[in-house]
């Protein structure tokens, strides 16, 4: 699914070179649910942006579903994002003037699939909303929804095109703890149905929903353990 080898990313800020990633190796298999953890400055965001095809590495290889995406053009990357990657953001990023349903349909605007009928689009969006248990508020606008409901709309949007990988960047960062756990249950349910999920978080109890924890520090993979090992290590440490 994801094969990353020797991944490096160097930013130039004026004269200074910042090494955000210093040779990261990471393999994520089909239908894994992985938490990525790390302090700010650990290179976590950079790694996520590269995995999400929003950014390109300075060096190293990245295969997504067997495709070498490291050298793709911006247009090709956009297509990969549209078809293979679903993003969930901390602050939901819903379009305020559109209904939940319209928000979920958004990726279809940029889809290669021409000739989708309106009914087909709606059917797909409703199906995605069903998978996040939000079928009763599809015509509401974001400001008429609670935080948890908004995030569920965002998840529905992310899974609309049945992505290879669902990436959630601090998906519970703006939610209270009860709602946070509801949202994580949804991710868990999607994972159970076969979805590969990558969650960026700094909270251990959110990471606990995953099977595997990858910890980064200073642009390196610090540890890459199963959740049990990770928890054991934490207790020991």
């Amino acid at each position, binding site marked *: 699914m994801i094969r990353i080898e020797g991944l490096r990313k160097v930013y130039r800020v004026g004269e200074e070179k910042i090494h955000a990633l210093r040779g990261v190796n990471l393999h994520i298999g089909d239908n894994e649910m992985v938490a990525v953890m790390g302090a700010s400055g650990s290179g976590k965001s950079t790694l996520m942006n590269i995995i999400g095809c929003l950014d390109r590495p300075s060096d190293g290889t990245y295969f997504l579903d067997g495709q070498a995406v490291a050298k793709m053009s911006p247009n090709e990357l956009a297509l990969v*994002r549209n078809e293979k990657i679903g993003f969930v953001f901390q602050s939901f*990023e819903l379009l305020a003037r559109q209904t939940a349903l319209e928000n979920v349909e958004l990726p279809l605007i*940029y889809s290669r699939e021409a000739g989708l009928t309106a009914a087909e689009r709606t059917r797909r969006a409703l199906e995605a909303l069903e998978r996040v248990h939000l079928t009763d508020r599809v015509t509401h606008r974001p400001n008429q929804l609670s935080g948890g409901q908004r995030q569920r709309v965002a998840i529905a949007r992310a899974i609309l095109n049945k992505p290879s990988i669902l990436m959630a960047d601090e998906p519970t960062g703006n939610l209270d703890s009860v709602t946070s756990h509801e949202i994580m249950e949804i991710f868990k349910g999607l994972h159970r149905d076969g979805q590969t999920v990558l969650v960026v978080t700094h909270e251990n109890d959110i990471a606990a929903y995953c099977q595997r924890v990858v910890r980064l520090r200073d642009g390196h993979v610090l540890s890459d353990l199963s959740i049990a090992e990770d928890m054991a290590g934490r207790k020991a440490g």
Partner: protein
Amino acid sequence: MILTPYFYLQAIKLALSQIWANRRRSVLTSLGIIVGVASTTAVIAALTGLKANVLKEFESFGANRIFVFPDRPDNAPRNKYPREKIRIKPWEVKELQESCPSLRAITPVTEIGLTVASEERELDGISIVGIWPDWHEAENRRVIDGRVFNQIDERDQRQVCLLNQAAIDALRLPEEGVGSHILLGGRRFLVVGIVETVQARMFGMDGSTGEVFVPFSTALKLQPPEFFLRVVALARSAEVSEEARAEIQRTMRRIRGIQPGDPDTFQVEVIDRYIEQFKTMATGITAVAGGIVGISLLVGGIGIMNIMLVSVSERTREIGLRKAVGATPSAIMMQFLLEAVVLCLFGGLIGVLGGKVAAIGLTFIPGAPLKHADVPLWAVGVSFAFSAIVGVAFGFFPALKASRLDPIEALRHE
């Protein structure tokens, strides 16, 4: 990159919803375009109306009518071309009549300054015109009562005359008119007919001016020896009017013995030419109006560009999100271009409607020759086309800026 019809549909829908959401801002932004398009369509409407009016007058005047005037060549010394040399003589008109086969009718016209009197009144300022019977055909004005002048009137210099209705009214002649007598410079003339009132309101003439017509030979008797005359002729058809003009010019040069290379001592004008001149003038005015609209559209375009830049920076996060879900740079570019174009077309639409209202307003101006003022369809088309071009031209830079936003940066934007 292929953008699907669904993308275009959504992009236009989004553009319209943006305009609606920022109603006031949209109207203010497109004000430049609105004013530009409205003023141009109004000017074009006025010109169209004026043109329709003038052409109609010219038409009723006769496009195949030809005038010959005495004319001293420009910048020529007065002593080289004395008055007597350039003045058109009656025999020259007869010669033209014989030598110009393309003419259907020809008549000399000479105006006499005499007082006109009836038993009731004495009047100054009524025009007394000496004519041949051909005049009726040349000027397209029939005798509606009584008779035209005949050969005997002309040969015997008979003291007969024709009047128009205004002259009858001004002289307080009996209803009939025909059969009464009037005095021209103290001589007694018999009214033999009534000439129909002039239809065309051209060159300051209208039906309210009193007119008296006498046989041309009779007019000679009343005129001083060196009187001026002009010639009115009618070509067989509008198609041969240019040919007729050439015939007249050739004949006049021949009978006046003008050497090749020397200038004409007369002037031949075809009404057609006036129409051409008017059309040229109208085109000129249209071009000037076009220039003005160009400037106002430029100003309007800068307003559009400004607001599109604001829109791009306001919606940076949205752009980031759209890119994250798979919008290519070209899709983002297209979306913002469409938005600018839709905004401009919206301005164009209001402008055209404004112009239409102005055009309707123009038709109500009393006395103005704008009864037929209307916005022609081509002006509507051109307005929209220009609005769209402005949208593309001035929306390009903001759209490019949006398309080049880095999605990561854009999503972090506050």
